[in-house]
């Protein structure tokens, strides 16, 4: 084929499409070239100098991640010259790196550590820079440790890809460091808390603000009743922290593990995903029928909500007033559940397990009244399970606790881009047309950045759009504002691919991330679970029926508005 290029990598002949880089070609030849600043789909700038290789026709060593292949090229990746150069680069990074490796969050899962071992580095070869800076503890979701940063800029690329741009390189030369403009703290900056920077970081310079100790303290407190609930996507990713293949659904083991953390109950957050759908579908139909502000945007994603409040306050009236499933659960537990079980809400300690760092911020929003006491990420839950000495892989599969166990498949797919839209369409269509049969709205599935579809329900045309990744959300907003596109309902998830790819999900080694499509594999686990569920529509869940019969009356009713809905506040920032 004319557009294929033939070359040799370490004497192995390969044929790759024109425009490929040496790194792409090496992967095909099954040769691994080390990288630090490169991250598939996120960052590719050739600045870390780890991927330097020898190539015919090039002067000196070239960066494989950005250097294009050419016909007849011969590449050597493992010469003395390459190894020496990489080792020196690593040792220079180590001279500045705060080597708290013993108890670092990323110990054992750190790209710098892994390469330093592989290249037999002397961490003290160069004079050590011991200048230290305070941690950025301003935000309830992310902690930044500048002294562990190796200036790879992957977080900057991830943040820019989100069209947020809260962080960037500051200064020049040796003094260059990553930070917010004018050295603002993250909380003062335009950061929305999505945590994509954390999962992009190859070292321990970025991590979530952990609340694990508070949760342990609550479990140990005899005055407290502790309940956990887990977000839909956590079951699709937790296994990765225990070396299970990407895309393994560990729902049963996850429930069993949490139950073994102490005297706790474990509920299924898919229930309040179902509840969100009941409220949101009702709100959508009301807006359509009463000429409300259109299109309506979903509001489950707290990073997206913060993005709107800060960057597009003019779009606030478009946001659904529904609280997110996390906050609906908090509200439900501190009202209905406490009343029903005679518990003083002060004695109920609510822990949500979420794939997300922004949810840590969401539960601290004043209008949420502290209904969720602690929000911990998938990573934090994995750490708790390890601390407790639970052999995760050997656990039996156990079921969620009643009364919040039985959910619909619609609630489960909330964790993937398009899932909220599909679940809402299943219910809204039925609300408008009692005979509407379709449950598989496949056009809104998949990992494409922006998906569009049109459905005809009860003589009405419903135009929908689904976007994941905030840059894509930005495009959707621009298209709406310019009149280029017209929609009735838009789902936005801040993280590319949705919650399955959230900022609180396990950080996998680059070798895996650069070869697998995590968001796709993880989402498939959720769609598989949905397919197996006899209950596909949120309205079919017996728990939902009970909740409305016993407590809320009807969706969109007075009590719903008090417990399940919220409001937003403009907070314009540049």
């Amino acid at each position, binding site marked *: 084929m004319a557009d294929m290029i033939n070359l040799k990598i370490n004497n192995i002949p390969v044929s790759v499409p024109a425009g490929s880089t040496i790194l792409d070609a090496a992967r095909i030849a099954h040769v691994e070239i080390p990288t630090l600043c490169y991250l598939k789909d996120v960052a590719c700038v050739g600045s870390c100098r780890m991927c330097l290789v020898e190539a015919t026709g090039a002067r000196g060593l070239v960066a494989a991640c950005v250097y294009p292949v050419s016909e007849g090229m011969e590449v050597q990746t493992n010469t003395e010259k390459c190894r020496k150069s990489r080792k020196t680069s690593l040792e220079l990074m180590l001279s500045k790196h705060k080597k708290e490796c013993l108890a670092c969050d990323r110990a054992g899962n750190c790209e710098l550590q892994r390469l330093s071992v592989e290249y037999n580095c002397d961490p003290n070869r160069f004079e050590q820079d011991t200048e230290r800076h305070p941690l950025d503890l301003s935000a309830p979701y992310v902690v930044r440790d500048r002294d562990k940063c190796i200036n790879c800029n992957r977080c*900057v690329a991830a943040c*820019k890809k989100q069209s*947020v*741009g*809260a*962080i*960037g*390189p*500051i*200064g*020049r030369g040796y003094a260059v460091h990553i*930070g*917010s*403009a*004018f050295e603002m703290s993250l909380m003062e*900056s*335009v950061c929305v808390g999505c945590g994509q920077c954390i999962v992009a970081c190859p070292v321990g310079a970025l991590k979530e603000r952990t609340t694990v100790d508070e949760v342990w303290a609550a479990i140990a407190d005899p005055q407290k009743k502790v309940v956990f609930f887990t977000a839909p996507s956590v079951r699709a990713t937790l296994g990765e922290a225990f070396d299970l293949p990407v895309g393994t659904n560990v729902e049963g083991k996850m429930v069993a593990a949490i139950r073994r953390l102490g005297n706790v109950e474990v509920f299924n957050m898919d229930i309040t995903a179902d509840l969100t759908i009941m409220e949101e579908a009702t709100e959508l139909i009301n807006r359509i029928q009463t000429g409300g502000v259109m299109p309506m945007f979903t509001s489950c994603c707290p990073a997206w909500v913060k993005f709107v409040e800060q960057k597009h306050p003019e779009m606030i009236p478009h946001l659904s007033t529904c609280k997110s499933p996390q906050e609906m659960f908090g509200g439900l537990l501190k009202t209905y559940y406490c009343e029903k079980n005679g518990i003083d809400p002060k004695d109920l300690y609510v822990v949500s397990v979420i794939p997300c760092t922004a949810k840590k911020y969401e539960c601290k929003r004043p209008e949420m009244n502290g209904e969720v006491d602690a929000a911990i990420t998938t990573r934090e839950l994995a750490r708790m399970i390890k601390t407790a000495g639970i052999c995760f892989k050997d656990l039996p599969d156990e079921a969620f606790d009643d009364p919040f166990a039985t959910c619909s498949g619609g609630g489960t797919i909330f964790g993937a881009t398009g899932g909220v839209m599909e679940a809402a369409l299943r219910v809204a269509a039925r609300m408008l047309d009692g005979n509407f049969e379709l449950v598989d709205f496949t056009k809104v599935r998949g990992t494409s950045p922006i998906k569009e579809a049109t459905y005809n329900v009860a003589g009405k045309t419903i135009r929908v759009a689904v976007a994941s990744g905030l840059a894509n959300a930005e495009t959707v907003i621009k298209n709406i504002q310019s009149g280029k596109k017209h929609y009735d309902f838009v789902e936005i998830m801040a993280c590319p691919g949705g919650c399955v790819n959230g900022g609180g999900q396990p950080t996998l080694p680059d070798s895996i991330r650069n070869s697998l499509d995590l968001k796709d594999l993880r989402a498939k686990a959720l769609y598989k679970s949905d397919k197996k569920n006899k209950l596909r529509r949120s309205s079919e869940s017996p728990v939902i029926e009970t909740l409305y019969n016993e407590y809320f009356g009807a969706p969109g009713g007075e009590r719903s508005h008090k417990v399940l809905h919220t409001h937003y506040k403009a907070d314009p920032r*540049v």
Partner: protein
Amino acid sequence: MKQCEAACACETLGTPEQEAQLKALIEASKSTPGCLMHILQEAQGIYGYLPMQVQKTIAEGLGISLSEVYGVVTFYSQFSLTPKGKHPISVCLGTACYVKGSDKILEAVETQLGIKCGECTEDGLFSLDSCRCVGACGLAPVMMIGEEVYGKLTPDKVKGILDSYREETK
């Protein structure tokens, strides 16, 4: 160090004339790719430095993030985040000047003005920076005050030169 005065643009965009100039500048340049450097340079001409509000306006105008603008501003030593004095002093620390002892010149200016490099005097008369070569190596060591070049300096000449500016403003 001189902080904000009435006309300072830390929180505002300065005088109405300055604001109009900045906005016209952005409007005129924003469609040219790579216009950020040019805008920053011109904006520094309007304000004397690049305060936060000015950088925010540029970021918004160009549709890029403030952190990107700030990254460029902090990368180039020509851009300043602090107001400059009426007479900006720049002591050359380039190779030729340095081997001729310009570090001692800088020290002398610091002592004379009671400020550090990068700062501005209380009365707003002088600000002090260092630079890398002004293209007058034959006159090393060299410093510039405003557009004026002073060459073949010795530390004891510094006071006299500064006094001439102090006299001028009395």
